[in-house]
């Protein structure tokens, strides 16, 4: 019987446990003075990005692969869930010189 308990205990140690790292995060990306601020280095599917437009101008965060297109009127804050892995180039569709890259791993 003792052996059985030992085996069960050993098996329990091998079971996967939920990792704290798997919990989705929300990251903020600020737009100010016609520029996208820093984007998170660690980004995973299920995480969220809160786009914050501090400019007095209308902007957007628009993916080149069409996976997202977030309209950002002056002063707007819009949350978006990151869905798929990949390297995603994005621009402001109103001011295409404003650009950045999301690296979803």
């Amino acid at each position, binding site marked *: 019987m003792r052996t059985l308990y030992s085996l069960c205990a050993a098996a329990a140690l091998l079971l996967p446990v939920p990792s704290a790292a798997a919990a989705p995060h929300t990251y903020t990306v600020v737009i100010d*003075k*016609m*520029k996208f601020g820093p984007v998170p280095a660690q980004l995973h599917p299920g995480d969220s990005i809160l786009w914050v437009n501090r*400019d*007095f101008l*209308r902007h957007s965060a628009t993916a080149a692969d069409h996976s997202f297109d977030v309209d950002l009127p002056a002063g707007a804050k819009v949350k978006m869930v990151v869905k798929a892995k990949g390297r995603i180039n994005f621009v402001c569709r*109103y*001011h*295409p010189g404003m650009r950045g890259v999301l690296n979803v791993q």
Partner: protein
Amino acid sequence: MKLTFALPAALLVMAAPAMAAAGPTDPQIAHIAYTAGSIDIAAGKQALARSHNKAVRGFAEEMVRDHQAVNDKALALVKKLHVTPEDNATSQALTKGAAAERAKLAKLSGATFDREYVNNEVAYHKTVNGALENTLIPSAKNGELKSLLETGLTLFREHLAHAEMIAKGLK
């Protein structure tokens, strides 16, 4: 058309001595910036009334939206700073040049209008951006005004690139 706006460009330089060696004052800078924005809003509205070209109309909408936002911000700033924008030779030259261009555009239609409007937008943004970079921003004393002008210059460089892209497509 480039000649029309070459005149205000020259005046921006020539007017500098008259505005004292230190360059234009903040009230004068605010007036010039607001006037330049108003001119492009009016030009955008004229294009929206006359053009049927999708790219041209999209650009004109962008001009009206962005320049109106900058002018609203500028008005709020001068109010906050208790600054009264001061009319000056540069603003008057810009207004005079714009009136001549508006009259010229009013006689055109179709593809001829589109080309003239967009070519003028290229020339106009080059002139205004040069004035911002070389005269207005270096002369601005108030930090908030200088910051607004710097953001404006970044924005107007986008406009210039957009106008140049459309101009290529219209040739």
